[in-house]
């Protein structure tokens, strides 16, 4: 159990500025997920916390103690790697016992700890096997077992699920969450998969180009993205974007583009008034769109043509075109629409987002 503090953390190597001024406070027992596209600096940040990567500038402290110059072994952390990094020449038991033996635990203690961890993960039957005799999911469990057996202050996960097939990934995701609830150890988890980030994290940190874009609880990121990047990265299918111009007419603001004319909701009107006569980016999530009914105001509806229908069972995704704008709408599975058909879509005015076209920042 520990608090991890990252202050003005920077990393440059070979002239690349991989991590830029990262400030992060990870509370005791918290599960924090770093997420972003590849090359965004999330893994480098994690490796700096682990002590595998030197810190160019800034400070990392665990429980108030600066660990910048501590060797990995002295930081009392455990890490699970993407390729599991099981020692191929050792049995599962020896793999799990290695860290304890290195730390000079006596034999009965090693034995009892390994057995207990194996029990938690349900791998008691595998203890005598070699890693090559295990399936992907089993290897993953052994890698987890090796981490929890030492009862470290912080868990570090580096894309631990990305080598598993889709079904197993979902299952292990749930198990990881359950494990964290049970062990209550501070955890930092790196992934490029936003679904993993949203489901696992108490808090999610979105990174891009070495810079933290936004940090917050999953639904906060989803509902109030601070910029266009976070808005497009979180959520699947991704948010729809359309470049619109803001015009004032009849005392209200209107967002217009070819084939699309919607009223700016009163809540946003104040902020958008400064942009009148200019272009902004309108963002609307697929689930904020629905087939318009009689009760829907014409101010928040538009006509479109269906281009692709993707029936997924629990929902239907409609790829539509409104003028020059391609959009995806997530609609009720009972909806009966065909390709090339015209549909009128309405959206929830509360769930419209506007972004500055230059900086991408939310308006």
């Amino acid at each position, binding site marked *: 159990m520990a608090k991890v503090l990252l202050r003005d953390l920077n990393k440059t190597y070979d002239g690349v500025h991989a991590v830029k001024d990262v400030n992060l406070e990870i509370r005791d027992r918290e599960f924090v997920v770093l997420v972003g596209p590849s090359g965004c600096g999330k893994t480098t940040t994690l490796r700096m916390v682990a002590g*595998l990567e030197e810190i160019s500038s800034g400070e990392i402290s665990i429980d108030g103690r600066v660990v910048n110059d501590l060797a990995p072994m002295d930081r009392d952390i455990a890490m699970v790697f993407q390729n599991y*990094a099981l*020692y*191929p*020449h050792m049995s599962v038991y020896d793999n799990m016992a*290695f*860290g304890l033996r290195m730390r000079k635990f006596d034999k009965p203690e090693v034995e009892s700890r390994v057995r207990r961890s194996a029990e938690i993960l349900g791998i008691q039957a595998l203890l005598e096997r070699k*890693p090559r005799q295990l399936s992907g999911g089993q290897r993953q469990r052994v890698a987890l077992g*090796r981490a929890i057996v030492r009862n470290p202050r912080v868990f570090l996960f580096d894309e631990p699920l990305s080598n598993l097939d889709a079904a197993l990934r979902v299952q292990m995701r749930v198990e990881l969450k359950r494990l964290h609830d049970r062990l209550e150890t501070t955890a930092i988890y790196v992934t490029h998969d936003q679904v993993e980030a949203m489901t696992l994290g108490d808090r999610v940190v979105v990174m891009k180009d070495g810079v933290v874009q936004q940090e917050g609880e999953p639904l906060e990121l989803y509902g109030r993205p601070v910029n266009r990047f976070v808005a497009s990265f979180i959520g699947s299918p991704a948010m729809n974007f359309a470049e619109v111009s803001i015009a004032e007419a009849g005392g209200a603001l209107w967002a217009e583009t070819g084939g699309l004319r919607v009223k700016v909701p009163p809540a946003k009107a104040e902020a958008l008034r400064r942009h009148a006569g200019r272009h902004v980016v309108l963002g609307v999530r697929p689930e904020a769109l629905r087939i318009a009914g009689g009760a829907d105001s014409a101010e928040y509806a538009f006509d479109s043509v269906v281009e692709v229908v993707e029936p997924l069972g629990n929902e239907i995704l409609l790829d539509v075109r409104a003028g020059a704008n391609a959009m995806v709408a997530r609609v009720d599975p009972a909806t009966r629409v065909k390709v090339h058909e015209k549909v009128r879509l309405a959206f929830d005015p509360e769930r419209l987002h506007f972004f500055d076209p230059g900086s991408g920042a939310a308006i």
Partner: protein
Amino acid sequence: MIEGAKWKKWLWFYLPMGMFILGLLFPFYWMAVTTVRPDRELYRPWNHPLYSPFWTTHPTFDHIKNLLQETLFDRWMWNTMLIALAATLISLLCGVIGGYALARLRFRWAGLLGTAIFVTYLVPQTLLFIPLADIIRDYHIGDTPWALILTYPTFLIPFCTWLMMGYFKTIPKELEECARIDGATRWQAMLYIVFPIAVPGILSAGIFAFTLSWNEFIYALVFLSSPEQKTVPVGVVSELIRGDVFFWGPLMAGALIGSIPVAIVYSFFVEYYVAGVTGSVKG
């Protein structure tokens, strides 16, 4: 299997394969036949009524007896074994540590150093023995086993270093990182994790080094002079070819017996050897 494919497999696979094996094994067969062929069949065979070039009807062990009793062959075997083992051990030790450093540590000029080591391997021994002879004279180790034990590593270390460097690069570095987080120092991670995994690579480097030193000729010829210090390749050639007289029987017996240790080493470690050269670590 389709009928037509059968003869095709014979034609394109078994036939060339058979010819290849035949070509490779023929020198050994010739060595064995000559070893047991009596002298009267070896010299002026046209006088012999039942002469056949590819086998003999009167096998004899005279040549082997002659080799063991009339020459210092047992001494040469012992010398060769000692020198090959010592040179191999020294080269392996340096090669493994050097290969690890080149594969893993990030330091200035690491790439350049790796290339430089490789280039030294390319310097032909026929050039290198001249300056080396000078050094050996200065250190007064000429005509002792040390002359070879200390000079063989000049070509074995670059070779072992490169082979080990390649092998270490196939071992995921996460294994070491994980060990270091688990509480091992860099040395412990090397000792407990990397080296045990690298055993196939170390063995194949060792086999190669052993074979190269066992067969080495030119340094042994130049740096050793007294008959009792010689190694098998030099001893056999220098003592069994006198002037223009070739003692073919003992010569071939020496070659045959001399190749046995290498054959044994290979056959024992062939699986490691293949794994080492193809370099495969399964996680």
